[in-house]
């Protein structure tokens, strides 16, 4: 049966729930972190295994919710639908679903809150699928994820799936180590077919990408030591940024041509695609690798980064052109700076997601499976 939301579960109780393999929609213990004093984050301890992927459920306009998927080689993996309770004080598990394999990438559909995609591996096999969350109100004790589409044209290890970030679009992109696929999908009929495909050749190794929110024909792909850009109509390369060993890339949601990269050594770099020769800005990033980087969906000068030094950093980085009228040495000119460093993590942080509904809120996921939701409201007010 359903466990009432006020019921406090201890770690052992949780474990026993899983061990008995009861497919339950459980509500896990939420707590305010007081361990290190300074931290204000709301922690969700529901993920029992290691995890890398977390996504904002953008299409859910009624709630601030996130989807997180686990990465366990041997145990049964899960996808958690996590919701920030209305006063913003608790993280509630709205749904727990078993996922057949360990999840390396998870993206939420931008126009349907119940649809999401995952990239997974199991030993030597790999795959990418689009799933639908079952009706939560149903009386079923064991809600199963409905498998909608399999993106099974890949011959290399799949790296990520991209949805067009700015609304309803019937296309999907999937990226594996050697190819870029453009799919036409029909979720209601559970149909997907490849429209076009581009191979980057044996010399390159794709590891990720981003879809330009300002132009549904433009996509960026992360190669070994460069960032490549394609036009999806022709599937031809349009430009590239050399000397960028990127782990992650994110387009500026407000201004076209601008994007940010996270790199192992160079930290965070901001680029203007019209001048790809050298970065517009550099931010130090993290003590070790900078793994993920995201613009705030509303305040594009706020940039969030996650690193393998077990921290999440909040940066204020004014895009070029914003303050050009103010002289460089004037004290009035806003400086780029590290606004805050969130250190309440025990392991590398790989997952990072701003909430679209509540842009002052972000969720982060460290490798040990801890989801921490923080509010940056004080920094927004200050500027």
């Amino acid at each position, binding site marked *: 049966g359903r466990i009432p939301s006020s019921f406090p579960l201890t770690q052992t109780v949780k474990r026993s729930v899983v061990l008995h393999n009861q497919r339950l929609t459980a509500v896990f213990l939420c707590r305010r972190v007081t361990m290190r004093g300074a931290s204000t984050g709301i922690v969700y301890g529901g993920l029992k295994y*290691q995890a890398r992927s977390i996504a904002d459920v953008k299409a859910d306009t009624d709630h601030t919710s996130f989807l997180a998927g686990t990465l366990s080689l041997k145990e049964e993996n899960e996808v958690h639908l996590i919701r920030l309770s209305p006063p913003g004080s608790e993280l509630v598990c709205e749904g727990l679903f078993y996922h057949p394999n360990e999840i390396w990438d998870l993206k939420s559909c931008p126009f349907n809150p119940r649809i999401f995609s995952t990239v997974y591996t199991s030993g030597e096999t790999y795959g990418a699928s689009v799933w639908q969350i079952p009706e939560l109100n149903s009386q079923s004790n064991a809600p199963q994820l409905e498998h909608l589409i399999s993106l099974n044209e890949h011959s290399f290890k799949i790296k990520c799936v991209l949805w067009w970030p700015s609304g309803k679009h019937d296309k999907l992109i999937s990226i594996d180590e050697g190819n870029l696929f453009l799919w036409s999908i029909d979720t209601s009929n559970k149909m997907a077919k490849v429209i076009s495909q581009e191979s980057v050749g044996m010399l390159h190794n794709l590891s990720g990408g981003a879809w330009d929110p300002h132009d549904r024909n433009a996509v960026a792909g992360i190669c070994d030591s460069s960032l490549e850009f394609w036009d999806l109509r022709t599937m031809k390369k349009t430009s590239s940024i050399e000397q960028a060993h990127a782990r992650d890339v994110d387009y500026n949601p407000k201004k076209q041509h601008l994007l940010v990269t996270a790199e192992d050594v160079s930290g965070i770099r901001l680029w203007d695609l019209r001048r790809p020769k050298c970065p517009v800005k550099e931010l130090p990033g993290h003590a070790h690798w900078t793994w993920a980087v995201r613009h705030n969906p509303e305040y594009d000068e706020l940039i969030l980064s996650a690193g393998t030094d077990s921290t999440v950093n909040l940066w204020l980085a004014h895009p070029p052109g914003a303050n050009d009228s103010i002289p460089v040495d004037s004290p009035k000119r806003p400086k780029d700076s590290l606004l805050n460093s969130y250190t309440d993590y025990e392991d590398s942080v790989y997952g990072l997601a701003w909430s679209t509904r509540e842009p002052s809120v972000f969720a982060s996921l460290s490798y040990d499976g801890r989801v921490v939701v923080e509010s940056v409201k004080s920094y927004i007010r200050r500027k």
Partner: protein
Amino acid sequence: MLWIRILLRDSKDLHTDSCPHVQKLNLEGLLQKHVEMAAEIKNLDTDLQIMKNNIVGMEANMEQLLAKITSVQSKSDLVNTSLFEKREHIEKLHRTRNLLRKVQFIYDLPTRLAKCIKAEAYADAVRFFIGSKPIFEAYGDSSFQDCKRASEEAIDLVIKNLEAKIYSDSEPIEARAEAVVLLKQLNFPVVDDLNSILIADNFVASCQVDSLKTKLLEKLEDYLMTLQDEHKETGASALDTLETRVIWEDVTLMDEVLAEAALPAFSLEAARSIIRQFISTSFSHLLLEVSEALTKSQPMPKKGSEESSLQNALEGSKKVVIQGSLDLLLEFRQLLDDNLELLAKLRDLIVDWVQEGFQGFFQKLDERFLALCGKGYIANPDSSVIDAIQVDKVQTGLVLVLAQLSVFIEQIAIPRIMEEIAASFSGGGARGYEHGPAFVPGEICRIFRSAGERFLLLYINMKTQKISILLKKRFTTPNWIKHKEPREVHMFVDLLLQELEAVGIEVRQILPQGLVRRHRHSDSTGSTNSSRSNATREDKLTRTNTQRVRSQFLESHLAKLFEQKMEIFTKVQYTQESVISTIIKFCLKSLQEFVRLQTFNRSGFQQIQLDIEFLKNPLKEFVDDDAAIDFLLKEVIGAAHERCLDPIPLEAPILDKLISTKISKSREESQRYNKLTKPKELFVCSERRL
């Protein structure tokens, strides 16, 4: 006839006027009048006759006179013609006399020159000689042969004397300059002598100055004259005292201005710009020297002297920075000490410029350093021309040199220069107090402190990235799920150790040794306890060896629950140990991250276990922070364990055997390579094998 007409008229008038009388007078009266008039007319007629006779007489006389004049004239012409020939003759004689005089001059020239030499009137001698030159040129070979030879001998003597004059230091400079000019007039080759050129140039310059002066004064004179004229004009036309007074005042004012302002101001302005330029070029020259010192002695790969080349670069550039700056200061101080009146006026300005110069110099130096590291776009983001230096072509050694040089500038050079400036370039303040002093050592120190940290981090990043690429290749190439049973320690450990060795060579040249402290954990914040407990636990584990690996994992997981995370990312210090250990920590963390991205079968896991176990001891030779290394190595094995489908570790005896095989093998190899080749080529070979 005229008279008659007049008379007639008069009579007529008389008639008409006396018309009323005509009726009154009687005929008798009229007759009477007629008689009188007739008599009168008769008289007049006689007079006229007499006069006519007189005039005819005069005419005759005139004719006589004319005849006489004509005769006189003809006689004088006659005389003139007779004298003409004589005059011509006289003129001819005169010309001949002049020629004879010239000839006499030529004949006398040698004696004259001798006299001049005796009197040391070389200027006259030269003038005489040059004057007679055309004649010698025309007739020197015929009529005046002897004369020419004699005077040439004399002029040779003159030249000799003049030369002596130039080289004699006892002579006043004007005399020497004059000598140079004279020699030049004689077309004597004096150009090869620098000193004389200098003297001549000085002289010429002073001549130019003189001529400029004259011209200027002439202009002024002219102007004053016109003013005077105007004054006169106005004075003549309107005697307005007020106006003349105004003009007078103008003139006196002009007199004052002329004396004090006009000329000195111009020369002051000229001196100002020249000194300013001098100072700025001095600084840009120094900037160039510094970057040359840095790049010239950049380590050339494949050269035997690599061991010390970085050190040379550092020492060389240090010297250029400090010595160059002090030399500049000395030069500028001489400028102030010259005690020229003009410079004294500029003193404050010079002080400001020197201070500004240093401020700008160090700011530019910082930008230059960045550009040398291929990061020029940070200092100058708007420049469309991106420095040709690409990040991947930058020599890592150079970055390390820059880091240490920045520290040197911050800690040694700036305080020293500040002292020097305080001693001889204080004051200034022509900029106004609200701007404060031009040279702000605090700001420069701050710039170089952060620059030093940035370069040190950049060095670490560059090295880490290089190793990271090596590790990436290692982990993405094999299929870890189908890995075969480990037979030996993998090659990549050799490459890793070689890279670290290379780092060691570089840092040992540049950075000082840190205090040797084992367990240096007070540096890291807040994790003292955890890392100590880690160390002791690890010591125990190595003793009991790997049979308890499984329990070790459990232990580490448990430990993780209670411990706070290890503070491995501590602040880097400018010591050999700190830099190397930071690089190693970063690499081990990267290793862990790479492992986490793979899935291993049992053999794959065992291979990782073997490689890491092997690395343990060699890594500890590089660093003093054993605990951190142990912790991170354990994390790598832990990560592999997590990502392994069947994590059963290697048996301890097999592990030990494989490791000892590797140790003896690498010892053998290193011996062989030491005999045959340089270590650099070992790297190349092993890379090929990879």
